């Protein structure tokens, strides 16, 4: 493989604690190295910014919900289509781009690793078929466990060994990466049109509570030593006053110590916290509780979060939180899709227009940014939009701009129709902090990689790591206009994926060699679980057990992370 040397770029790399020093980065055989030979191709990065490839910890980019979103929203394609080229297929869509476009757009922004945040196990093969058709980026997918009947029964009976054996089996069967929990218990209750709105609401017929489900899965995750922690979207998303439920959820992890060999320090990740940081008790007195939420996060080092920033676009919401989507369609009256999945989960989709003229939308926008600005530890606070829920991932550069420029935030705040009300319900106007490039690299590279247990593989530029390297045409010291930030981060000049130059001068020149990550967690043979699985498939599933597993040929270029414990 070829050698490269990226010369004289200004490097930001939290992994090696390089904070904006001018430095050469060397690439050989797909890895970062100390030195290269004189034959190495040289790229001049003088005056430019060099970072590791960015790591997406939570986005909905592949699978049944995403595809239903595409197919039922032809309007989302309007004015977006790009014809194919020498190295690219035709590509379209805005909030729910086609798989090809997903790969190209992430790569162009310098993202090289992306986690699909919710995989219904019964539909796992579909998720992997889409991942296979998503070029360039490495991907993994999180199967949902929080409404799974096996999990309910084992936890209710305090059978921790069985929970672990089942988790191990399901990760292997679906080729999944981590334990995702969405509206624990509530999505099962939605099978009857009901919900669990606090973490202590019992799940109908299953005699267990959301708190018990989360705590049980957290315990199992640490006993097993998985690369990622449990990845939670708790109950009562999107409702005024829900920050109390959020804090109740966070407390479940209080004091628990991580156990793993992957350098992960958290035992609990909460996703799209923006949707969970609401005060007030109605839309009239709806307000931000970002400070209260972040005070807790800042003082509890065993947890991480991602933001879920609202970008003020027309988008498509989609979640395994079925009851929430039904609630949303009763609010905005836009078309509602729902899929309840036997024994496993529910899910729903509703288009949404985050209109800056509407007070609530503007407050949501402010909350997402406040969370980041209140964060004392950027290594535990990651930038996301919960794509496409709060906005499409293609807007990340705009969020970077807002986080890095108080001026751009003030302009937004002043421009809102309900400016005074928005300012009264939030504290964003008084936060003059500006995230710097090093912190950005923590929030988009080193932090998420570490939380995923991939800290020695991606998100950094230490010798031996995958050579995922990005060059942006921007110089932190010389920014005059915040728009320059959005522009530069929208279009990296060069992107390397595992040592292959995939973006050159902003153009896709190679589809790289994308990999699919999944976790093979070894547990002792457990005949009880084997029997239970057979029994449930015989009696309650609509497919045969032997047709459930995602066979290897559906997994694009698998990279298996083995966990012995």
């Amino acid at each position, binding site marked *: 493989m070829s050698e490269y040397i990226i010369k004289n770029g200004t490097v930001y790399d939290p992994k090696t604690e390089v904070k904006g020093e001018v430095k050469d980065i060397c690439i050989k055989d797909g890895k970062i190295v100390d030195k290269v030979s004189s034959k190495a191709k040289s790229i001049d990065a003088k005056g430019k910014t060099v970072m590791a490839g960015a790591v997406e910890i939570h986005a909905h980019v592949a699978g049944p919900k995403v595809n239903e979103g595409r197919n039922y929203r*032809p309007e989302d394609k309007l004015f977006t289509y790009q014809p194919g080229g020498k190295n690219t297929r035709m590509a379209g869509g805005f909030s729910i781009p086609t798989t*090809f476009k997903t790969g190209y757009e992430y790569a162009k922004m310098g993202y090289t690793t992306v986690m699909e945040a919710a995989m219904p196990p019964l539909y796992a093969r579909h998720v992997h078929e889409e991942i296979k058709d998503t070029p360039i980026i490495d991907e993994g997918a999180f199967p949902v466990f929080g409404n799974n009947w096996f999990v309910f029964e084992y936890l209710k009976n305090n059978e921790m060994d069985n929970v672990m054996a089942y988790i191990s089996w399901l990760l292997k069967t679906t080729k999944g990466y981590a334990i995702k929990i969405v509206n624990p218990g509530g999505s099962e209750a939605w099978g009857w049109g009901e919900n669990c709105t606090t973490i202590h609401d019992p799940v109908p017929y299953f005699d267990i509570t959301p708190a018990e489900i989360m705590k049980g899965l957290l315990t199992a995750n640490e006993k097993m030593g998985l690369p990622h922690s449990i990845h939670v979207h708790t109950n009562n998303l999107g409702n005024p006053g829900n920050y109390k439920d959020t804090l109740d959820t966070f407390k479940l992890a209080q004091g628990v110590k991580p156990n793993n060999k992957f350098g992960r320090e958290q035992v609990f990740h909460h996703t799209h916290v923006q949707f969970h940081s609401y005060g007030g008790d109605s839309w009239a007195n709806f307000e931000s509780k970002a400070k209260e939420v972040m005070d807790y996060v800042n003082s509890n080092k065993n947890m991480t979060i991602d933001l879920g920033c609202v970008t003020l676009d027309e988008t498509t919401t989609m979640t395994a939180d079925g009851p929430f989507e039904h609630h949303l369609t009763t609010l905005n009256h836009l078309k509602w899709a729902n899929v309840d999945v036997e024994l496993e989960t529910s899910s729903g989709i509703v288009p949404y227009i985050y209109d800056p003229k509407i007070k609530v939308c503007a407050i949501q926008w402010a909350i997402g940014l406040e969370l980041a600005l209140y964060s004392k530890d950027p290594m535990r606070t990651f930038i996301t939009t919960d794509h496409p829920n709060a906005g499409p991932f293609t807007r990340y550069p705009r969020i970077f701009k807002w986080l890095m420029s108080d001026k751009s935030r003030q302009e937004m705040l002043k421009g809102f129709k309900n400016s005074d009300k928005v300012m009264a319900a939030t504290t964003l106007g008084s936060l003059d902090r500006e995230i710097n490039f090093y912190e950005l690299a923590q929030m988009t590279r080193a932090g998420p990689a570490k939380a995923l247990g991939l800290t020695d593989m991606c998100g950094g530029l230490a010798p031996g790591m995958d050579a995922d390297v990005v060059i942006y045409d921007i110089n932190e010291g010389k920014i005059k206009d915040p728009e320059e930030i959005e522009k530069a981060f929208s279009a990296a000049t060069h992107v390397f994926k595992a040592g292959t130059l995939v973006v050159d001068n902003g153009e896709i020149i190679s589809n790289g060699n994308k990999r699919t990550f999944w976790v093979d967690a070894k547990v002792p043979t457990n005949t009880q679980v084997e029997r239970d699985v057979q029994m449930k498939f015989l009696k309650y599933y609509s497919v045969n057990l032997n047709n459930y597993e995602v066979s290897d040929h559906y997994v694009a270029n698998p990279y298996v992370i083995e966990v012995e414990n």
Partner: protein
Amino acid sequence: MSKTITDVVCPFCGTLCDDLIVTTDDEGKKILGVDNACAIGAEKFIHSSDHSHRVTRPRKMQEDGSFKEITYEEAIEHTAKILVNAKKPLMYGWSSTSCEADSVGHEIAELCGGIVDNTAAVCHGTTLIAVQNVGIPSCTLGEVKNRADRIIFWGCNPAHAHPRHMSRYSIFPRGYFTGKGAKQRKIIVVDPRPTDTTNLADIHLQVEQGYDYELLQALRAAIRGEPLAGDVIAGVPKETVYEAVDVLKSGRFGVIFFGMGVTQSLGKDHNIDAAICLTKDLNDYTKFSIVAMRGHYNVTGSGQVLGWQYGFPYSVDLSRGFARYNPGETGSIEVLKRQEADAIFVLGSDPGAHFPMRCVKEISRLPSVAIDPHITPTTEICDVHVPVAFVGVEVGGNCYRMDNVPIEARKVVEPPEGMMTDQQFLSAVLERVKELKAN
């Protein structure tokens, strides 16, 4: 001696049963028996295994209308050439094959500026349009089995078209919350005529032909407690409508299954809009879902692959270098009627048997190729017929059930010697198209 293969997927209807047991001879060449399948499904397996009636090499139509055997290489060349030479080839079918084959076909279409369309064009395309209008609250078939106590069949006759649907998922199975099976369920069937399915109904709403929309809206009104005018609504006595409403509202989990009787009758997508809105309304009282009874075993999969690659589920026009979707304009029937296509490629469907006469004539007039394991009305009017291995019998591949659940079809026997699979054939055509385009 014989061999037994379990968990076999039936490549016939959208029910996509995956519990078949197939017995073959020792060498895995001949199918001796099929267990668990319905009569239609079993017949498909047995029939394919009798090679005597199958063409095993491509054939080209001669001036006099007879067919002469050609090699696969010649068939690949013919196919690549007509596609490359065409400005707007119509590439139709994709519903009785695997997603893997669909995917290769799309790449060819992209290079040749084709229109990619599947059999939704003549069955559930109207459903897809309705979903784009009003969404769709739905669930997997296992949810129906485990929870449902109210089942409506609207404009469909599963007893004939999806024979095992009722026993596997909808009427008879005992699930987690439905331990009493059929006894726990109330069945409503909406059909203008008595059928084998209406025989199983607790209530048969004998709607007047063409009045589905009226009946659907009347149900919606009655559910909200609005008074209904007239004693007979859409051919159904008012009391029966009220009776049906009571049944629907009093259930804990209901499902509407609907078929071509309502998607292709007067009102089309508007009927489905109303049926979906009825489902949505019912969720204010109880839990309700709606599921389309898709016909071809993998028409759903074709829509899925088109969805993730282009963002539209059928009638996708790639001729301008980017994907366009405008059913009524970019659909196969319309394109053929307007004589807009200049070549025809068919795989995984039989438009010769299902399209209007005018369209069939147009197919026979144009440069064409049909890829199909069988001799069909379509292969008889196309310039070249390329026989391929049976997906789900002689080669595996991914398929999507009517509820979008993906199931990997299995291979149970060897195809006749030297026979290509459709994916192999398409891959060879793709290679050749790339070469021709490069020159």
